[in-house]
């Protein structure tokens, strides 16, 4: 009898556990848009901003999604894709059960319309960056064609896409600003006020600077999803206000900065609701080889040895970062787990500087923003470390937009910034290819024949393993050549309320949650 009771209790426990994991229908997900300047607008094609794609994931959909578990883009609006032998033509079998929020079924025409709209040169949409990979897209951008040659409708649900390069289109078309719109609708002025998308929630209202509300789209193509009835995105750029609102249970998700990360980890009520992920951003100090000392690899290596990077991460960044061991981030399939970072060794740094002819050191100008994680506080911590090996630094502090402008123009000796380095390892390393101009993304004017060969070979192979092996070798060359001071990879941290389930550890941007997977338990105060 006693055994039977025990067995019964165990069964109840199991049942209870299973029930806790069963997604609940209903409730409201209360997200936040935490990055500075609100939402730019409601036209996804017109924005590359991370903040805007929080709304993008709720209301819109792209050809691919980013699968956080697998760490790769996966087909979303298509059931399958066949790739031609030369790797350039991709034939997509589109889903035939996808409906826009106005009730219209999505077809190949909508994809062609959306991509053609993006490439309209007169509109100068930032999303053109991604669609330019389709053959003939640039002609539309330049006004030399009205249709994209590389996009062909075979039938309503079959789309042929020819690319200009052998790349995985998933890395291009998972980006939120390549959202698919219903053909013709986005040309109507009211679309900017009341957008129509394919996402799991349909647009209800946008109070600029305050909130965006969306409600469940009943004809969403994933069976049983979305779970929640509504999504509210609160526009909250101020971290202290977000902190109070989160503690007051008025929001369900909040991105944490270093100071809050420490506070939340130490709070017994909050420490169990923290989601961490190594995002695909590499914080670094870029060095301009046109500034004579930085042309010498030994000087660049010396800088990497002269800085006690671990100490800075621990004390200043409060462990809200992972030590960088080269350019590719931790979550990259080409990341080399065996590589050790540059050791803190001022003596070795001095020796390298002496070998390079800078026994008495030199002075350089370091352009920085005020950012707490990769700006002035970090630079100030590094100054005495560099001074110890004889390097003097003149700090030039500017606003981050100005910094980006100066970097893009190559007007710097050194700068510190956080730059996206994934999830496309090939794309990230192509920025260091000698054929990539400085104005594109080779801000470091990196040039290495062996590196170029490896990246080119990686672009030609169909084998993912082989590609990753080649890119790993290329990344090792970057480590050795040290075009930058490898600082850290961002550890994104999100606090979530205990009633929120189904969050995804999205390494491309933690705030980018596919909300159809999220459910809200009964205990949420928001009904």
């Amino acid at each position, binding site marked *: 009898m006693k055994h039977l009771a025990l067995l019964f209790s165990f069964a109840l426990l199991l049942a209870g556990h299973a029930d806790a994991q069963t997604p609940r229908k209903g409730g409201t997900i209360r997200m936040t848009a935490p990055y500075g300047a609100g939402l730019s607008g409601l036209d996804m094609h017109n924005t590359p901003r991370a903040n805007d794609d929080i709304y993008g994931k709720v209301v819109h959909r792209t050809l691919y999604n980013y699968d956080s578990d697998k760490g790769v883009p996966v087909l979303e609006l298509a059931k399958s894709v066949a790739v031609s032998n030369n790797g350039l033509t991709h034939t997509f079998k589109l889903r035939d059960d996808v409906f826009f929020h106005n009730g219209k079924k999505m077809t190949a025409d909508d994809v062609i319309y959306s991509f053609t709209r993006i490439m309209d040169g007169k509109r*100068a949409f930032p999303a053109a960056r991604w669609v330019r990979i389709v053959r003939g897209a640039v002609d539309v951008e330049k006004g030399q064609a009205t249709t994209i040659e590389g996009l062909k409708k075979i039938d309503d649900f079959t789309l042929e896409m020819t690319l200009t390069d052998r790349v995985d289109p998933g890395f291009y078309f998972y980006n939120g600003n390549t959202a698919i719109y219903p053909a013709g609708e986005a040309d109507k002025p009211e679309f*900017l006020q009341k957008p129509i998308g394919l996402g799991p929630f349909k647009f209800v209202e946008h109070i600029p*600077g*305050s909130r965006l509300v969306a409600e469940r789209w009943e004809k969403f193509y994933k069976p049983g999803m979305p779970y929640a009835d509504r999504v509210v995105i609160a526009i909250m750029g101020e971290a202290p206000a977000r902190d109070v609102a989160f503690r007051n249970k008025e929001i369900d998700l909040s991105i944490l900065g270093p100071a809050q990360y420490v506070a939340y980890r130490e709070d017994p009520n909050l420490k169990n609701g923290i989601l961490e992920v190594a995002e695909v*951003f590499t914080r670094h100090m870029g060095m301009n080889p046109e500034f004579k000392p930085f042309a010498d690899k030994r000087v660049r290596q010396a800088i990497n040895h002269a800085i006690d990077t671990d100490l800075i991460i621990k004390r200043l960044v409060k462990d809200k970062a992972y030590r960088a061991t080269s350019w590719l981030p931790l979550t990259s399939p080409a990341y080399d787990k065996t590589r050790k970072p540059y050791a803190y060794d001022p003596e070795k740094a001095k020796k390298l500087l002496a070998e390079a002819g800078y026994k008495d050191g030199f002075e350089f100008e370091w352009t920085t923003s005020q950012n707490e994680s990769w700006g002035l506080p970090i630079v100030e911590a590094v100054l005495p470390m560099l001074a110890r090996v004889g390097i003097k630094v003149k700090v030039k502090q500017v606003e981050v937009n100005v910094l980006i402008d100066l970097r893009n123009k190559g007007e710097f000796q050194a700068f510190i910034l956080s730059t996206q380095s994934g999830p496309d390892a090939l794309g990230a390393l192509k920025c260091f290819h000698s054929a990539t101009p400085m104005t594109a993304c080779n801000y470091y004017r990196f040039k290495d024949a062996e590196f170029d060969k490896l990246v080119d070979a990686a672009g030609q192979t169909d084998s993912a393993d082989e590609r990753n092996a080649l890119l790993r070798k290329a990344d090792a060359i970057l480590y050795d050549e040290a075009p930058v001071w490898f600082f850290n990879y961002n550890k994104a941290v999100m606090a979530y309320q205990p009633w929120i389930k189904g969050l995804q550890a999205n390494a491309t941007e933690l705030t980018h949650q596919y909300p159809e997977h999220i459910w809200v338990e009964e205990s949420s105060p928001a009904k």
Partner: protein
Amino acid sequence: MLAYAFRRTLQSFPTVAAVALVVFVLFSVIPGSIATSMSDDGRGAMDAEVVQRMRKELGLDDPVYVRFAKYVGNLAVLDLGTSFRSREPVSQLLAKRMWPTMQLVLAAMGFAIVIGVPLGFVAAMRPGGVIDAVSMVTAVSGLSIAKFWFGLLLMYLFALKLGWFPTFGYGGWWYLVLPAVTLGVSPLALLARTTRAAALEVTNADFVRTARSKGMSEARVVRWHVVRNVAVIVLTTLGLQFGSLMGQAVVVEKLFSWPGIGSLLVDSVFQRDIPAVQGCILLIVLFFLVVNTLVDIACAVIDPRIKYT
């Protein structure tokens, strides 16, 4: 009266033109552009070709004088241009944000008047007393307190600890209380101090002493002589504060996620959305001028010695 109002309106044109010029020149010379700001601190991907195309299509590569001529030309037909960020007409953006800011400014001013003016009067009636000391400490604190910090304190106390009001957001009156108190605290302090000083000065004036010596009751003295004379000074302060509150709302609106002109201005500045910045600043300046013109007229109505000149 109408002629005076018309003349005041005409006088405000040079001010508006000067502000338009200063804002335009300022945003033409500072580095950075909408294209670079879109990369969101490196989180969003922008490439050089797109940046170039955006600069060309948005007219940012045109010489400054060409851009200024276009801007003035559009302004002359009341066209504030199109937002670089949202691609919506700026007038439409401002229209959406105007009412929330007016709500906030009116509530803040209401709070400041209801508390500040009586506080100043009471303090003046008993100079050196406990109420006077308390009111002046309050006034000095109110003037020197940082709005961001004060707003956070209010959030912490009244939202998190007491649960009386929501921390942030926009909706019913209960969303308005904390931002309005945060915004209203410095005009409250200034009004209290001004009222006290004015009331003290007037109560010691010759004409008040004469009225008292003629046997006029204290209530009548206060109503007919003190209040009317203090009102002119208070009203002038009120007008200046009311006009400038829209500009001061910037911090409060961002902190409380309040969808007004202030938060639009901050966002637009950071994103170098020049047409939106120009629109916001022009609106704030116009508001200031209109309020001050109305105050001048009101002062003249209260005190007939003030001439419409």
